[in-house]
């Protein structure tokens, strides 16, 4: 064999190797085929994705093609390996791999503020360290009963040519997973008990909608959400065409994502029903906070792992222990009661009382998904003082209620992100953030809308502090293992 032949053979082997291990990162315009099933390893096992209806070419598909001047596509911030969200690990990998030149780091919202020197890491610190994308909202909105002052502006994007004086407010949020959409769009009941009203209406069709899209609820439908994202995150000058909207909608309604393999084996083994295929096959919108809910067809929240309550001594010890822990975690999630207090959307104005005794499943009540069956605008304190952890990197706003004071914070509120109030303009909505899917968590750290919890344990520790729950160490480990399996 000649040297040339050896070189050709080696090249062919490398090419085969590359085909077996495709890049985790999907860059815009690559033109890959999105397979019907896809898995990505992560620290807790494997994430699985299912595309119902079969494989889909992405060449020319508007979710995957660069559409704006920055070379971004939807997939830039909604990566398959990150459960169609964006992990901070992926962000850091891209920064190193591209020396900060990936379209992800576009000045408009991939940096702390467009006016900062874009070549410096510090200008992208919120994205690199916390996975946060800048979200610029117009302010004030019509009918508002509150005023906004900037107390602290570490990103320099809430002052000068930015900020409330210029009719803008910048907040920083994690990209939400674009998967399992039928659950987020499902309507279980005709009424929103948090608002004391029937469900909100799609402004274009007049039909009711779930109210469970976006952290601040500013878009009530997928169409409005993608138009908002195209105009801001993609900086498109032209509108998406009806065909592009239809193509993106089609993909988003077909893609399901969940952890499919845990650290000790498949999550649909031993009678369990973990993984994305169950999500694709199940009926959404089922209220799973009550095991005997009339007309429920799906059972209690996280009952996918009920079969693991039965011990299997034949299993290797580590797998056996993990399964038992996940099953216990599901029960702790549903059954460990604690006092929930001073949380708008729960303790006011619904009528549950302040405080009220309940468990995680009180709000995370949709079977298989853990979002809220009702529109999920709730203030858990993650963005608002005194409950939020110190976050010196984030801006801080002082909200003054000009009408009625906030039922729990009073007339003056300090917040990193007013959340739903940026949409409604209402003081009573400050700090409310729409509950989101609990799926694919292992693939998309950090957590909460502002990335405050760097890992799954951080979520549990926050809730334990916030509501003085008194979880045991065993409870905490079990809840973390449950979330690793979602």
């Amino acid at each position, binding site marked *: 064999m000649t040297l040339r032949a050896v070189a050709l053979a080696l090249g062919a082997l490398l090419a085969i190797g590359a085909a077996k291990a495709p890049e985790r990162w999907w860059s815009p315009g690559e033109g890959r085929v999105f397979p019907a099933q896809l898995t990505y390893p992560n620290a807790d096992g494997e994430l699985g994705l299912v595309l119902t209806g079969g494989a889909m070419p992405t060449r020319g598909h508007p979710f995957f093609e660069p559409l704006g001047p920055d070379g971004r596509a939807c997939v830039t911030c909604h990566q398959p390996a990150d459960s169609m969200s964006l992990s901070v690990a992926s962000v850091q990998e891209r920064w190193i791999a591209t020396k900060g030149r990936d379209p992800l780091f576009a000045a408009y919202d991939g940096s702390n503020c467009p006016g900062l020197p874009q070549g410096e890491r510090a200008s992208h610190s919120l994205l690199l360290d916390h996975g946060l994308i800048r979200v610029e909202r117009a302010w004030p909105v019509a009918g508002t009963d509150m005023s906004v002052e900037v107390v602290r502006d570490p990103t320099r994007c809430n002052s000068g040519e930015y900020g409330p004086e210029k009719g803008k407010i910048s907040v920083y949020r994690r990209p939400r997973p674009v998967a399992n959409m039928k659950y987020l769009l499902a*309507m*279980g*009941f*005709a*009424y929103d*008990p948090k608002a*004391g*009203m*029937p*469900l*909100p*209406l799609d402004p274009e069709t007049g039909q*009711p909608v779930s109210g469970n899209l976006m952290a601040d609820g500013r878009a009530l439908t997928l169409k409005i959400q993608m138009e908002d994202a195209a105009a801001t995150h993609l900086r498109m000058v032209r509108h998406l065409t009806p065909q592009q909207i239809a193509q993106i909608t089609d993909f988003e309604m077909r893609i399901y994502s969940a952890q499919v393999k845990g650290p000790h084996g498949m999550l649909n083994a031993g009678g369990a029903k973990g993984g994305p295929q169950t999500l694709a096959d199940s009926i959404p*919108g089922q*209220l799973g906070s*009550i095991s005997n809910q*009339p*007309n429920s067809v799906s059972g209690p929240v996280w009952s996918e792992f009920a079969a693991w309550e039965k011990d299997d001594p034949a299993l290797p010890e580590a797998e056996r222990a993990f399964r038992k822990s996940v099953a216990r975690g599901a029960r702790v999630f549903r059954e460990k*009661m604690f*006092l929930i*207090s*001073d949380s708008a959307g729960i*303790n*006011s*104005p*619904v*009528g*549950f*009382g*302040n*405080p*009220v*005794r*309940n*468990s995680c499943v*009180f709000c995370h009540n949709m079977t298989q998904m853990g979002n809220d069956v009702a529109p999920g605008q709730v203030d858990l304190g993650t963005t608002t003082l005194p409950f939020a952890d110190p976050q010196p990197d984030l801006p801080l706003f002082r909200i003054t209620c000009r009408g*009625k*004071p906030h*039922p*729990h914070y009073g007339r003056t509120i300090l917040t990193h992100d007013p959340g739903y109030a940026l949409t409604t303009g209402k003081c009573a909505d400050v700090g409310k953030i729409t509950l989101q899917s609990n799926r694919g968590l292992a693939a998309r750290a950090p957590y909460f809308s502002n990335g405050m919890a760097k890992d799954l344990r951080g979520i549990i520790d926050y809730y334990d502090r916030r509501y003085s729950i008194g979880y045991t160490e065993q409870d905490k480990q079990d809840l973390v293992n449950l979330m690793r399996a979602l």
Partner: protein
Amino acid sequence: MKRVVALMALLAASAGAAAEVNFITCPVYRDTDNGRKSGCWLGEDPASGIRYDITQSAAKPDWNFAVLVEGRVAASPDDPCGGAVLDPVRVSILLDQPCTRHMIPAEGFKGRKYVLPKRNIDPLSVVRAKPQPPFATRSFRLFFDWNSDFIAYQREDHSLDMAIAWIRGAPVRSLTVTGYAATTPFNVSGQAMAEEKGMGQIRADHVAEALYRLGIPKAKIVTRNGGDGGVIADALADDLPQASRRRVEIVAEVAE
């Protein structure tokens, strides 16, 4: 001692055929643990010194604010919370009257195991029964907490659900939505209580918006402020006279 006081209240109620009990107080939360939503709410009537169990209200108190309590002493001698049980009872949160929050331990009281209330609405997946002819003009009522236009969960949303099921299935020509408010002062715990004159219109507008969201064209809906409509007898207001003053009446006129 507390049980004796509760018994006295029960005996007094029996003698007086369960007269309406109205008072304003700072609520006390008793941390009973009998599963979800099992905490107890207590309130002491300043006039009598009797501690009442006000937990059975569909809308519960907020421990940071005073509450207006309207109810009747229940006939049952049960005492799961440590107070004379009011049932029916309605609690309105008075956001302009702050209270020092106070929580007391269970002290042996078990609280109540949660059961779904009777006025719990069905999921959308449950098909509502269609109204049957002959159709005639019909009215529906919603009742409200003090100074509020909020459609109470598992109480008034149920009434609205019943109303819209009929309205959708009947040949309704127009809807007149009239809001009423308790604008004539009445004395409770030494306070002259009166709602703002505009509250009737606010309630009417709120219910009209709810009807619109449920698919009724705005052109079919007329709203008006009925002022103080006075006391009426209605089981949906638990036959509580003062609570009955705070209402919206939807009159659905059918086509001939």
